[in-house]
């Protein structure tokens, strides 16, 4: 090469080199340098920042979560993408289906985060996930009528095993009062009527169970039904003697009930089944489920991406091979397992590796979806980097995390480059 040609070559390379240098090489270099200095940037800290990465609890959680992310998010997305791609090939409306699955890719991570924050909302009236879950649950186990009823002041009842038990034994001919408070008026059973004091009946045990609370007045007359107080219609009452139920009854609309003489001398129990709490659904964004939940939202976004790439690869698979296998007597599963997947292996590798790189830097979804109370449990390295660098004023440690992330990405990138080279050579 002559000197002029070298000069020309250099001239042409220069803009790219300058841009690369200024925008990529310099920031990387500076991050490495910065990671060796302390928070203020003027004291040399050596590898202290790196030591901090591996001793800080928060960063350790982040690291653990990153591993979970890298293992599961690309794997699940690719698997789903593969399934979609193979199935849609056979369906007449395949393109429409693909379009729908690919649609979430058109949404920004931020918007997806906001959407899934709502999807996972604890309140079944807001969060779709819990709405479905609670709906399914309640068809099998319904909640009770008086979930929050509890004894008021000077109550004859004491809590026992989720229900309530009278302090003393009941006697035939003496009406019993079983007052509770705490049931909101519009949660009272629809057929509840004004509570009335039970009349004494010889040889039987009578009583009333009612809401001993008058709107705006507190309890009113303590332990006796006031005019506007309602009976606990449908409340179950059990008479317990020596640990066994000897008789049981259900309260009428006005809260009155009658037990046979067998209950004489027994203590009355309002069993726990009356007070079962309504099912509140799954704690999606609680400490234990938050990471899988966010990975779910990631899969929602990226399965479409995997599907499109794999479908493109699938189009390149020679039909004859599949036909040949079928002719040889292979069933569909064997064709898929032994022919399609091996032929698609290079594409699958590209998809998995691309997603891995993508997942290592995941930030926005976690930042937006995890509520403050479980952000710590959902932490990932990129988020920790942001928190350390911009919220806690520790750019040294943040830089160290950045360098560490770079180290994690390098092997994956090397793999990608080597594979690309091989591809080119082929």
């Amino acid at each position, binding site marked *: 090469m002559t000197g002029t040609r070298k000069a020309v070559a250099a001239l042409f390379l220069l803009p790219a080199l300058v841009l690369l240098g200024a925008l990529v090489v310099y920031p990387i270099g500076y991050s490495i340098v910065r990671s060796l200095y302390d928070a203020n940037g003027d004291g040399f800290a050596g590898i202290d920042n790196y030591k901090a990465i591996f001793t800080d609890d928060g960063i350790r959680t982040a690291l653990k979560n990153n591993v979970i992310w890298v293992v599961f998010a690309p794997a699940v997305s690719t698997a789903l993408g593969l399934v979609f791609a193979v199935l849609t090939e056979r369906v007449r409306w395949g393109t429409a289906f693909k379009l729908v699955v690919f649609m979430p890719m058109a949404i920004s991570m931020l918007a997806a985060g906001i959407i899934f924050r709502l999807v996972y909302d604890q309140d079944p009236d807001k969060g779709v996930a819990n709405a479905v879950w609670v709906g399914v649950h309640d068809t099998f186990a319904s909640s009770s009528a008086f979930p929050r009823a509890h004894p008021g002041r000077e109550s004859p009842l004491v809590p026992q095993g989720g229900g309530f038990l009278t302090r003393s034994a009941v006697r035939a001919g003496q009406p019993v009062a079983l007052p509770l408070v705490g049931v909101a008026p519009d949660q009272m059973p629809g057929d509840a009527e004004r509570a009335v004091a039970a009349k004494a009946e010889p040889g039987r045990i009578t009583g009333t169970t009612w809401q001993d609370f008058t709107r705006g007045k*507190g309890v009113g007359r303590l332990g006796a039904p006031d005019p506007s107080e309602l009976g606990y219609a449908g409340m179950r009452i059990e008479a317990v003697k020596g640990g066994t139920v000897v008789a049981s009854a259900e309260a009428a609309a006005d809260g009155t009930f009658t037990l046979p003489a067998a209950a004489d001398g027994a203590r009355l129990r309002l069993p726990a089944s009356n007070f079962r709490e309504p099912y509140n659904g799954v704690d999606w964004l609680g400490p234990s489920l938050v990471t899988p939940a966010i990975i779910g939202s990631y899969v929602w976004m990226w399965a479409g991406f995997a599907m499109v790439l794999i479908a493109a690869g699938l189009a390149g698979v020679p039909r004859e091979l599949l036909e040949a296998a079928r002719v040889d007597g292979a069933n569909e599963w064997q064709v898929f397992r032994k022919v399609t997947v091996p032929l698609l292996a290079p594409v699958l590798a590209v998809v998995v590796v691309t997603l891995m790189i993508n997942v290592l830097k995941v930030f926005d979804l976690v930042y937006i979806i995890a509520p403050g*109370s479980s952000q710590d449990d959902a932490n990932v390295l990129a988020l920790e980097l942001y928190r350390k660098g911009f919220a806690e*004023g520790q750019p040294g440690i943040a830089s160290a995390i950045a360098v560490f992330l770079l180290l994690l990405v390098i092997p994956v990138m090397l793999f990608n480059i080597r594979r690309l080279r091989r591809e080119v050579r082929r």
Partner: protein
Amino acid sequence: MRSKSSTIRTHRAVTTGAALLTGALALTACSGGDSKSGDGGGDGGASASGSTVTLPKLNGASLEVAAVWTGTEQKNFKQVLAEFEKRTGAKVTFVPAQDPIINFLGSKIAGGQPPDVALLPQPGAIRQAVDKKWAKPLGPEAVKELQKNYSQGWQDIGKVDGKQYGVYYKAANKSLIWYNTKAFGNAGAKEPKTWQELLTAAQAVYDSGVTPFSVGGADGWTLTDWFENVYLSQAGPEKYDQLAQHKIKWTDPSVKQALTTLAQVWGKKDYVAGGADGALQTEFPASVTQTFTGGDQPKAAMVYEGDFAQVNIGDTKAKVGTDAKVFPFPAVGSAAPVVSGGDAAVVLKDSKAAQALATWLASPDAATIQAKLGGYLSPNKNVPDSAYPNEVQRKIAKALIASGDDFRFDMSDQAPQAFGGTPGKGEWKDLQDFLKNPKDVAGAQAKLEKDAAAAYGNGG
């Protein structure tokens, strides 16, 4: 809410002699500045009739004021600036700033064009501005006006190393409990004055079938504010200051007592809407709105937070003053606590006009204008009660002023950000864990102390 997000937290201000020195230099270098004031001489020019503050004539001078306020707040503040223009003849431009304002100012100063005056939240931000040699001390007129109108406590938090830098123009009262009047009425509960009465009211509400409290536990700062109120009232201002500076440990018995007290609300079954798990996923705005929606059957009857909760109540159909009322945080110890926040005007470019504006903002005249427009609290004790547009606002303001020097600034805002201001970390996280498991007082204390030690120990 906003006053929270605009939080700039103390960067472990190391007291440097240099700051003092600059202060002194700036003071001597005063008067020069770049004020283009035409007739810089006379002091007593423009006092209109009925005004209580004397301002110089500043025809031709122009000023820039930076604050993070937006919307109505900004519009109202501009009216205050307009009155200043009318009285002095200076021209004032409002520069909308972004959060965190200290970073915004940093870029402005680096660009050589700082605003003349900026409104900074929290004492830490003022100290930061002083440490960076941005802030200039107040001149004698402004200091005089301040001394006339502000209690010692409000003057002191505008001081750095004994020198007055900030005029607290706007205050927040974070010692309030908002309640749903219907739920209280149905339960026959009354506004409590003491912690015991609060528990009684809560029980009455609970007996009526409504959950007493709504807690926005997804945002850790609502929990630190709860704690601060209980602690300030129970342990007293001195201990509060010591804990804020980490001079006493979080393992102190006073902290144990405060947490145990808090557990009487947080730890009682069915006292917190949605239970602990539900509360931990409820953000502050939702914690307010769920208290004031649902007619007779709101998700909760009471929600604790500062005056800024009004904004969120505005998102519901409830009317402040009729459907939503407020009472001061009840006294846990001998006196009811007043935990506050606020924005202080700080002079960044020393000039006669800038000093005059600081003086103006310290005057009751300025505060009265904005108070009348609503949504604003002044720490200025000479603002008449009648200036506030409604009963609720008046009550909040009265409680704030009545606390005299016993109010305290939000403790978590004074702490290093890693401890007092990061989601999922430090005090926020530890109190969230405590909300989840209120029985473990000792464990919570140990965690708080560990995190505090780490956060107060490093950086600077």
